[in-house]
């Protein structure tokens, strides 16, 4: 245990997790924080999330232990290599936000009744619209890069970005000359928006927006973490992976845009489109 630099313990049984951390005798400063106070317990994703968090801070040659508690237990022991600093630097340069940043990027103004309705513990009168349907698993698998990675297709012939990806270019009609391009870390500007009182949403009213991304590409989708009265043409946004709805036992996650309070993540020279100016 003396060799362990980072101990990660995950599981749904909070008391068992806490008890094990203590019983193993690893010094407290080497036990990875689980952030449950800020983000709750993300369940099956917890081990991966905490490992990513640790690897963003770890040095080469360190020992990382991942323990997963359920009805049984799994243990994995990892040793970091000299390649780690290069990967860390590469991710920083690519603008990929670290886990710590995402954890601290949450909000603290959530009303308890809203939280309960999101968790399905407080029933809200739905609009007189069809209930949402569960997504199809094969279709979700086929569009994995888009649905989970928010990857556009960029035309190799002319550079036009398509969200969602397509095989034939809108701009130059080139066929199958596309490469995937990750859009999740780019910022965009609200070109136009609407507040939809009719559509189904976990958090009505749904705010719909047309987002034009820095460097090209347009996407029409939902906004989240947004005050409907505060959104405007020109609002700067970033993308965040959220639950759209749950249907027939399937949680449907996809990307939503949320306002960014500051311009620290903006490219040099400011956003691609002037603040407050719609694109036309």
């Amino acid at each position, binding site marked *: 245990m003396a060799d362990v630099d980072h101990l990660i313990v995950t599981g749904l049984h909070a008391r068992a997790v806490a008890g094990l951390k203590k019983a193993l005798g690893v010094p407290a400063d080497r036990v990875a924080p689980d952030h449950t106070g800020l983000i709750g317990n993300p369940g099956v994703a917890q081990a991966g999330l905490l490992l990513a968090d640790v690897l963003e801070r770890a040095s080469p040659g360190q020992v990382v232990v991942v323990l997963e508690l359920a009805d049984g237990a799994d243990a994995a022991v990892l040793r970091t290599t000299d390649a780690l600093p290069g990967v860390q630097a590469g991710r920083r340069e690519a603008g990929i936000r670290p886990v710590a940043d995402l954890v601290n990027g949450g909000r603290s103004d959530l009303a308890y009744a809203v939280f309960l309705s999101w968790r399905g513990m407080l029933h809200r009168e739905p609009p007189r619209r069809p209930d949402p349907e569960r997504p199809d698993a094969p279709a979700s698998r086929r*569009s994995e890069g888009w649905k989970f990675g928010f990857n556009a297709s960029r035309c190799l012939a002319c550079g036009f970005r398509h969200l969602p990806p397509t095989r034939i270019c809108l701009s130059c009609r080139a066929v199958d000359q596309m490469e995937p391009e990750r859009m999740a870390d780019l910022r965009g500007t609200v*070109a136009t928006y609407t507040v*939809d*009182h009719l559509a189904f949403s976990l958090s009505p009213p749904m705010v*719909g927006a*047309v987002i034009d991304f820095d460097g090209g590409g347009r996407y029409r989708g939902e906004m989240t973490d947004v005050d409907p009265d505060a959104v405007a043409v020109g609002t700067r946004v970033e993308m965040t992976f959220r639950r759209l709805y749950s249907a027939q036992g399937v949680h449907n996650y996809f990307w939503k845009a949320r306002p960014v309070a500051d311009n620290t993540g903006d490219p040099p020279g400011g956003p691609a489109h002037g603040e407050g100016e719609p694109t036309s």
Partner: protein
Amino acid sequence: MTSTGIRDRVAIVGMGCTRFGELWDQGTNDLLTDAAVECTGSAGVAIDAIDAFWLGTLGSGQSGISLSKPLKIGYKPVTRVENFCATGSEAFRNACYAVASGAYELVMAIGVEKLKDSGYSGLTGIHRVGDGTNAALSSPAAFSFLVPAYCHKYGVDPEEMGSVLNRIAWKNHQNGAVNPRAQYQKAVSLDKIAASPRVAGQLGVFDCSGVSDGAAAALICRSEDAHRYTDSPLYVKGLSLVAGPAAGAIDPEYDYTSFEEVVRSAADAYSQAGVTDPRAELAMAEVHDCFTPTELVLMEDLGFADRGTAWKEVMAGTFDRDGELPVNPDGGLKSFGHPIGATGLRMLFECWLQLRRQAPPERQIATVTDGGRTLGLTHNLGGAPGECVSFVGVVGTEPAD
């Protein structure tokens, strides 16, 4: 695009149209039967005399059986057609081509939708959700994008824009108030329209078309045969339908103040019909006023007003029933609701009445009786700004020159 059209080669010789509304006592089969019987009756023929049928419905039935069963059609070709909110017009367009090709002599286009039984607000999709990544914005929300974009581009104050949209709703309700087939046969005051609860963006309840049940039908034959059935046929001058590449939803160049699909289909239909100045040549237009800003933008896309000026023309009354170019003299989707498969044929039914001077005197348009104009336009739009199909048709009472 090479589109030569079928100008004056086919004619409408009979039509039928049910009342539109919350028709709790009538099912889809009743509506189809009523529309078909009125239609054949107006031409003095039996259903058995018809060679082939095109049925338009988005979701109130599938396959030709949905029509052959209630009408007891005896072993004839029946084609079911769907093309979003242009479904009714699409049934009509394909029926016309079948006659023009020489394949059949007498055909029926009929459209129906039974929306109210579901109990839902607005229209609903019927396709699978797929990977679950499509934004589930409602239709009023998707069309509400037009409002701030139009204001910004042409410097229209949002409050002024509100008055413009209110006047479009007011005008269409005025027209529907005197139409016994409309869902809402009641004039509505501008104050009441302005005070209606918000649905999406700046759109209130009165900016949205209704939800209703209804059916309409047309009987089509070769122009040279038309006088066998009626003394006053309507000749088909131009038919155009285009589906766009859904560019607006992904192209930052699109600014939400126009429907390129409408611009293209209008240019095609006008070219086929030989129309060069639609505002001066048309006696009337039935356009797809699913939401009030749609009608506003359509006035420019269809060439009835210059870019950035339609809002002034609306306020000046240009498109009122007694205006320079009556638009939606029957009350439009606003007063009729929008039973999808029926709407395009319902629009054609108003041309059928007005151009042939068979509308009741209290709502007969003067562009026909005094102005001597002979052409009418129908327009359907399916989808949303940036991603739609558009139909434009031109019909007229004068045969080929």
